[in-house]
């Protein structure tokens, strides 16, 4: 303000900004930088630091630097939860691919107008409320749910099928929630595929299966890998799905983090858990970018 009064020019402040692009950049970046540092980077660092501390007898945090929280991952109980989470995320990824790849192929071989409509239809549910979409599966899968009451009404089964409160329900919920993100990168890869290569293979007497596995699939592999990572990441970190569709025994990493923070109140251990989860995700994301998903 004082600098302003010393120069008689009308647009002096504007002139200062104009002459110094550094100030311009600073003004553009500052709000987001401030927010992301204060409410993202600093909390991230706090979690990292806490993961090396210890829980006191009343749930408070004791400043005693150690690696115990990370060593506790090797407790069979937590190893089992890690293994189960990886297994569920893995099965979800494979099922999403089996459903999503042919779907992507189908969409990519429609006319351009239909392709846009189908892609839009695919995207709409994907961006709607995840909680609500998970809730829909409670109505369908639980013991008195739609499938069981229909089957029992028709006299096909006497007892309700065990569709709810187990790993099966979690996998259904996760595939439902995330398989559209397999379709998009696969679609992008198939859409760019030069089909004359397929014709060449067939002219050289490759049968359909060979043409697919030796030509189409290898060329579209980057899309497949990118899509798999896009499903695997959220499935591994799932919290709502196992919480609502899984039973007491179907606990995943996300539920452990939640209970460490909100019920057990072992915040250092919860922090270590979430930090490991983040590192796994970042690793997967780096692979994703390496594969060239950005160019797809």
């Amino acid at each position, binding site marked *: 303000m004082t600098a302003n009064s010393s120069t008689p020019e009308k647009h002096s402040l504007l002139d200062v900004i104009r002459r110094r692009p550094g100030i311009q950049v600073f003004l553009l970046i500052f709000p987001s930088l401030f927010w992301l540092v204060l409410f993202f980077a600093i909390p991230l660092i706090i979690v990292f630091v806490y993961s090396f501390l210890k829980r006191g007898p009343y749930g408070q945090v004791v400043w005693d630097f150690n690696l115990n929280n990370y060593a506790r991952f090797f407790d069979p109980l937590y190893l089992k939860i890690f293994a189960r989470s990886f297994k569920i995320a893995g099965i979800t990824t494979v099922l999403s691919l089996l459903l999503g790849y*042919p779907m992507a192929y189908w969409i990519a071989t429609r006319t351009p107008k239909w392709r846009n409509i189908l892609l839009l239809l695919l995207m709409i549910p994907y961006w709607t409320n995840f909680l609500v979409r998970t809730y829909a599966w409670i109505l369908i899968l639980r013991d008195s749910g739609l499938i069981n009451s229909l089957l029992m009404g028709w006299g096909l089964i006497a007892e309700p099928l065990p569709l709810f409160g187990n790993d099966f329900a979690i996998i259904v919920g996760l595939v439902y929630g995330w398989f559209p993100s397999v379709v998009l990168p696969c679609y992008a890869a198939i859409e760019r595929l030069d089909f004359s290569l397929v014709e060449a293979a067939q002219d050289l007497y490759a049968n359909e299966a060979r043409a697919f596995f030796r030509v189409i699939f290898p060329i579209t592999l980057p899309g497949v890998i990118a899509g798999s990572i896009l499903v695997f990441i959220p499935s591994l970190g799932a919290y709502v799905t196992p919480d609502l569709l899984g039973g007491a025994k179907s606990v995943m990493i996300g539920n452990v*983090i939640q209970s460490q923070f909100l019920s057990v109140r072992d915040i250092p251990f919860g922090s270590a858990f979430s930090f490991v989860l983040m590192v796994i995700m970042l690793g997967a994301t780096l692979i994703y970018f390496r594969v060239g998903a950005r160019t797809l």
Partner: protein
Amino acid sequence: MSTLVQERKHTRVARRGSRLGRGLRALITGSGILGFLFLYIPILILIIFSFNASRFVTTWSGFSLRWYGELFQDDAMMLALRNSLVVAVVSTLISTVFGTLVSLAMERHRFFGKLAFDALLYLPIIIPDIAMAVMLLLFFVMSKITLSLTTIIISHVAFNISFVAIVVRARLVGFDRSLEDAAQDLGANEIQTFWYVTLPLLMPAILGGALLAFTLSLDDFVITFFTAGVGSTTLPLRIYSMVKLGITPEINAISALMLMTSMTLLMLSVILQRKGGGSVADIA
């Protein structure tokens, strides 16, 4: 030239699959249709049963608007709706302004530490909800900030800046800067150029980003769950606690309303982005 390419592409598309056998083509078509049925049937079931007259959630006994009526009588639900709207509107306004400004810097300027900042800008999208949620909770508790609507808004802005920035940056990449040069040649200063040329051209992307942010904020459950205090229950939190207590038809009604609202907002966002020259895949 582009039409020629498109035409060639089109004939290639038309020929696509024609060399595949009938069995394989049927399989592909089948899974395409099956996939869309899988995607939409649960949503349709939810919407249909929200009009069910019966108290039993999955037994149909006639059409009724009873549950929608009860919804609007439910004070807790109305408070949750109000809270959700406050959070969504405020966090969208803040994150849209911040996200747009930062996009301009990222696409048009070079500066020290840009790569690191780029990573910081992408991270909130990449890291799992649950991790971001506990880390914000820990931060608020440590800095003795009482959990309230404000903490929810702060958290929503923290992830929404990134989403707005992605949408706006996509538009800036294809931006024709000669239009700005023209304005300046005609005597406009930087502010006038920005206000009358740059901003209007960016508007579809900014609105698209804002709608995306609004939808994400309205729908967020995990991060809100951890950063909400007493009396700051939002709609997803209210739905969650109702589901935990037991399934009632009222949940179907509020769920159906939420689904239809997000779908409408998303359609709008896509239309805006297409107007702005983006494609459907941009928001993926």
